[in-house]
């Protein structure tokens, strides 16, 4: 309100309230910068500072109380020890497998669930609900269901004459089994993102295609699929970020085992932290940061640029 009155009575009010009106060009904004302050303090203290500090502490031998600079030794250890390095490979496999599956299954489910079938609302709810169950709950449940001897999955497979594998006890299977549970839990979000995209396609496209005599498959291939690019970008980025950082599900289902076969970067960070190797743990964190940045930022830029062009 002061803003609207300042120009005329500058000299008159200067005597009563000198400091604010002594400099007429400075107007107080209605959108003050201090609105940023409380959020900025919390964010800086608990996110920005630790992130920058991690770059330094990853170069040290660290016991929280004092740290000794050892250069790149932690990274050398990380890349030379197979059980540490494999976690990097596993992280990439896990993230790629889960996001690819969420894209493919999510899109197919979405096409199916937006077509004219009965019980659509029920089906959507059922597919989405696992997203809301905690990873710990899902992990415990599936580690029981996937038990090689007593588990429900292998019991069912045995009834149809298949000798089920040791889902989470076989080193070759463990990581992919956890990834499968991750897909089970997360495909609902992907599906609903795609459904929102499909619903937004103007019906005229399909009508025109019908006049041209296109069948359902050609509709999907030439209309739905190309128009799903923004939705796909969202699904890929969301699930890649989630997949690369994934910890809860892996930790409750396998703890990175058997051996180190399903260890990912986030679980290595936790293990090294528990063992008291804070410097090495932080180095693992930095590797994870660099991996996420190297994969997500180019993708983000690439996919967003394409959207802007459209």
């Amino acid at each position, binding site marked *: *309100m002061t803003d609207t009155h300042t120009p005329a009575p500058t000299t008159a009010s200067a005597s009563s309230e000198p400091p604010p009106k002594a400099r007429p060009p400075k107007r107080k904004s209605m959108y003050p910068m201090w609105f940023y302050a409380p959020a900025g303090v919390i964010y800086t203290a608990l996110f920005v500072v630790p992130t920058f500090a991690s770059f330094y502490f990853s170069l040290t031998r660290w016991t929280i109380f004092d740290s000794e600079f050892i250069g790149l030794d932690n990274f050398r250890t990380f890349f030379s020890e197979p059980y540490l390095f494999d976690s990097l490979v596993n992280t990439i496999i896990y993230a790629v497998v889960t996001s690819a599956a969420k894209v493919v299954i999510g899109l197919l489910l979405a096409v199916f669930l937006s077509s004219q079938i*009965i019980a659509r609302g029920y089906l959507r709810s059922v597919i989405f*609900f696992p997203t809301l169950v905690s990873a710990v709950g899902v992990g415990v449940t599936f580690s029981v269901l996937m*038990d090689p001897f007593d588990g429900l999955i292998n019991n069912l497979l045995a009834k149809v004459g298949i000798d089920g594998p040791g889902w989470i006890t076989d080193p070759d299977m463990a990581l992919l089994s956890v990834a499968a549970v991750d897909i089970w839990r997360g495909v609902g979000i992907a599906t609903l993102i795609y459904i929102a995209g499909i619903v937004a396609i103007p019906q005229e496209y399909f009508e025109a295609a019908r006049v041209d005599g296109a069948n359902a498959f050609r509709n999907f291939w030439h209309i739905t699929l190309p128009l799903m690019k*923004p939705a796909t*970008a*969202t699904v890929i980025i969301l699930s890649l970020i989630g997949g690369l950082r994934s910890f809860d599900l892996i930790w409750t289902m396998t703890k990175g085992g058997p051996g180190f076969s399903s260890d990912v970067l986030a679980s290595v960070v936790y293990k090294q932290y528990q063992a008291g190797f804070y410097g090495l743990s932080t180095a693992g964190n930095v590797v994870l940061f660099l991996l996420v940045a190297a994969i997500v930022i180019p993708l983000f830029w690439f996919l*967003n640029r394409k959207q802007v062009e459209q």
Partner: protein
Amino acid sequence: MSSATGISKANRAYSRIGGLVAIVVTAVVFLVPFAFIFLTASKDRAEASMLQFSWPTQWAFFENLQEVFEHRDGIIITAFINSTLLTVGSIAIMVILSAMVGYVLQRRKSKWNPLINFLVLAGLIVPPAVVPTIWVMQALGIYKTLHGLIFIEVAFGMSFCILMFRAFVASIPRELDEAAIMDGAGPVRLFFRVIFPLLRSVIVTVIVVQAVTVFNDFQNPLYFLPGDDGATLQVVLYALQGQFSTQWNLMFMNILVIMVPMLIMYVFFNRQIVAGMTSGAVKG
């Protein structure tokens, strides 16, 4: 004409058969695990240990429920209180602070905007550095405290909220601000009395999405609030995994108890949860 009815007949058949097949498949894939949780939670100890997918011969649902709540002097109840305080506290702070940021960020064009936008996106993408965060929290004296964990959840969840608020504020006409300014409102009154109430629908979305995230969070409580006193439900459930490995009925009763709040949320806020989680907030 005949071909048209042919098509609609085929469509109706597709609608029925496709729907039925989907109902059966989703029942097996998605409902059986939940039914398994419920049935095992209702069995007595001996029967539950067989891990069969079967109807309980002896229903022990309420006995199990009681036993779960009495386990270790009611640690589940303590954990329930902790989880509730954590969820409510962090979301209250998160909503107000991010609404303030999202609002000014959308309304005011300043040279800081690119930096702030960058920081917000970084908050979505960058994985938090664990041990350095503990180091900072120790220096501030908030490590292993509930309010410390609340601030952690606020810091890590804020980016999503800011993006949601910024997008929504863009749809509120500036004329409204100007009218309020004409009426003599200051910046604080303009925001809290005029703008904030208009954000109601997006606030509900943010609250339900973050409630699910914070309530289900396992990693942050595990790192930043270790110990029994402040344990949240997810951490207690994880700890029980080792202790209850011979008492599957109690283990699954625990899972069931933890799922109930989310189920209730889903029943009431179905639309907001779906809208929030599928908004593709990363697009900024």
